């Protein structure tokens, strides 16, 4: 009887967890043309964005003024990661991990390459900054984890694990404090945890969790990284114990929390984020129309904290949320970058938004710095859409007398 609509998951509204609430401060276009924004990372001096044209752009995090364009990769950039204030690392399907010094204008300061140009999907640096691990796509029959010595000048592979996954390795995550503990996630559904002390794949394989679904994002969370979250490509969410790999809770298809009365439409998960200060795990998820939903993940239930709307019109691919400073960056398939923060500004909502909120009591204060032209066009487009939808209905009304 399944018709593609997932079973409902109960959800409560808990806006007090994000106070003051985030509001849209600014949007900016990455470029003209049909570009997708893949990833965003930020620190106090830079907002760093990777896009589908194989470029990485640096922006001023407050003004969105462009600072630099990093061109090097020749294929899809699969992950970017900032390290401190000045270092950026990026992996690509071109088979390399590039290390950039953001203060210089030149190209990457170091490049780690796989000799066979194995497309790299994910990477991480361990807590002692000595080991760089990168996960590959499935090439022929092998999906590899390549290890590099991060401290050396050569970019030679030190070790390769090739037995532990049977499909694309989408996630590589080192333990936040234990430099010898690594976690990998793959399209084959397995979360493998390794002890790297002896650098032996067989002996080092500690525990395995079979999530049963193609893994999109995994991560450690908890005060001592004692838990793991797992988001799949089918939009299922599950929580696991990192010590013994046992399942804590399977939420199932998170699209089931969609609840129009709350103004909540959830079509896909973006990522989870752990907030150490409060001990809370958040789920950031989006709608196909560009809404960003922030949910609090409890041991066996979900709470909606806030819906961020008005910033995007297409799928949001990445968010970077500094919950301590109350700043969130977003980017997606509409090539737009969004800046959201909790600055108190007076509300100014458009008439259409008012109609929506009257029905759905949206908690969001919508402040869009759009021109009058854009607002008018917005209204007109809505009316046209309405009209097209109901042209068929009007037909009926015309023929009513015949019937």
């Amino acid at each position: 009887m399944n018709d593609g609509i997932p079973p409902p998951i109960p959800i409560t509204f808990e806006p007090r967890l994000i106070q003051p609430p985030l509001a849209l401060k600014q949007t900016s276009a990455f470029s003209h043309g049909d570009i997708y924004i893949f990833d965003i990372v930020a620190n106090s001096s830079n907002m760093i964005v990777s896009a589908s044209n194989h470029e990485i752009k640096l922006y001023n995090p407050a003004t969105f003024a462009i600072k630099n364009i990093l061109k090097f990769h020749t294929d899809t950039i699969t992950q970017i990661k900032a390290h401190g204030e000045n270092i950026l690392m990026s992996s690509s399907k071109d088979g390399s991990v590039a290390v950039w010094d953001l203060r210089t204008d030149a190209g990457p300061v170091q490049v780690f390459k796989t000799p066979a140009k194995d497309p790299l999907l994910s990477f991480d640096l361990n807590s002692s900054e000595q080991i760089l691990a990168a996960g590959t796509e499935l090439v022929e029959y092998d999906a590899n984890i390549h290890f590099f010595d991060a401290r050396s000048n050569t970019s030679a592979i030190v070790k390769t694990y090739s037995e532990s996954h049977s499909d694309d390795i989408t996630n590589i995550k080192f333990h936040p404090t234990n430099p010898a503990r690594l976690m990998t996630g793959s399209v084959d559904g397995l979360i493998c945890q390794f002890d790297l002390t002896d650098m032996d794949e067989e002996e080092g394989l500690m525990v395995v969790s079979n999530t049963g679904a193609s893994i999109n994002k995994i991560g450690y969370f908890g005060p001592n990284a004692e838990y793991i979250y797992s988001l799949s490509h089918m939009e299922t969410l599950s929580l696991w114990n990192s010590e013994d790999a046992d399942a804590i809770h399977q939420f199932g298809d998170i699209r089931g929390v969609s609840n129009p009365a709350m103004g909540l439409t959830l079509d896909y998960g973006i990522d989870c984020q752990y907030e150490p200060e409060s001990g809370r795990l958040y789920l950031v998820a989006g709608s196909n129309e560009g809404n960003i939903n922030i949910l609090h993940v409890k041991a066996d239930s979900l709470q909606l904290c806030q819906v961020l709307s008005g910033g995007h019109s297409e799928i949001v691919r990445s968010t970077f949320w500094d919950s301590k400073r109350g700043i969130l960056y977003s980017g997606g398939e509409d090539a737009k970058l969004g800046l959201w923060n909790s600055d108190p500004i007076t509300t100014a909502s458009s008439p259409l938004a008012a109609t929506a909120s009257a029905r759905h009591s949206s908690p969001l204060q919508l402040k869009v710095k759009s021109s009058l032209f854009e607002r008018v066009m917005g209204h007109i487009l809505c009316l046209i859409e309405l009209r097209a939808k109901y042209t068929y209905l009007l037909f009926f009304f015309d023929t009513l007398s015949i019937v």
Partner: protein
Amino acid sequence: MRHVTLKPRSHHHLDTSLKDGYTHPSTWSSKDMAIALSIDPSIITIIYADFTRTLQGHYGSPPSSLLALYFIDSSFDLLLRRTSCIDIIIIEFDSGCGTRGKPLFLLHRASLLLPTGSKIQVSAVRESVRQVKQQSEEKKRNFVETVELQIGLKNYDPQRDKRFSGSVRLPNIPRPKMSVCILGDALHCDQAKEIAMEYQSVDDLKKLNKNKKQIKKLAKKYDAFLASEALIKQIPRLLGPGLHKAGKFPTPVTHADNIGEKADEIRATIKFQLKKVLCLGVAVGHVDMSEDELLANIMMSVNFLVSLLKKHWQNVKTLFIKSSMNKPVRLY
């Protein structure tokens, strides 16, 4: 006073006469509408009685027709997300527009209102299934042919769109011959013996002595594995990554689970993944399944896959079903 009546549809409760004569609403002519209008009102049930109160509550004075219907649309959202396929939405007016109690007209652009309204009609799929089975009958093979669903996508860029990968459990087992072995603790091994399921105990696994060749042989021997919860933790120690490469890491079972059912669950689950080419093939059944069973599996697969696509039906270019040795039959 305006209210709405809905006709929920499921494979089992649908009135047979309606099911057989069902065609997609967008192809209906005025003659069809006249026929549809004569549906016996007694089989139309009102569900969600609350809805009618909401409708009245929001509008003080009688609204214009268009506005009322717009309101219905947006309030339906929650409703439609919770019910199974709705094909027909009948709006009944009993003030000045016709005889009370008789449906006046059909709002049958259901796909406009339904978030995942199916674009393929059950009768067309049934016809294609009939063709596929017929093809297979005509050229009998000495093995049971698999029935495969082939989906061609469009407006999807594998280089930059989100990955399309997952698995779905079908209502009827497409691969009944799939061999499942349980790596069991004492209780599960006993249960396996009772239902003639293949099993390996902890001792059996210890005997393999982590010999790579033996473990590979075990991995090759069965299509899938189950493992007792307690045992799963020991697998890395007992077998290393031996089962990983074959993509056969076991699915956990608890003492509360029925291992026969769990094995069937595995047999009924199909995996799908889109890589670089814009087409996808999944085995949804075999030719010895009944029409109804194949139909249910196909509808389930299609609706599930479409729901995961960003633009849903706009991302689907073609749909075919075929048996292993024969030509594909088009569905969409």
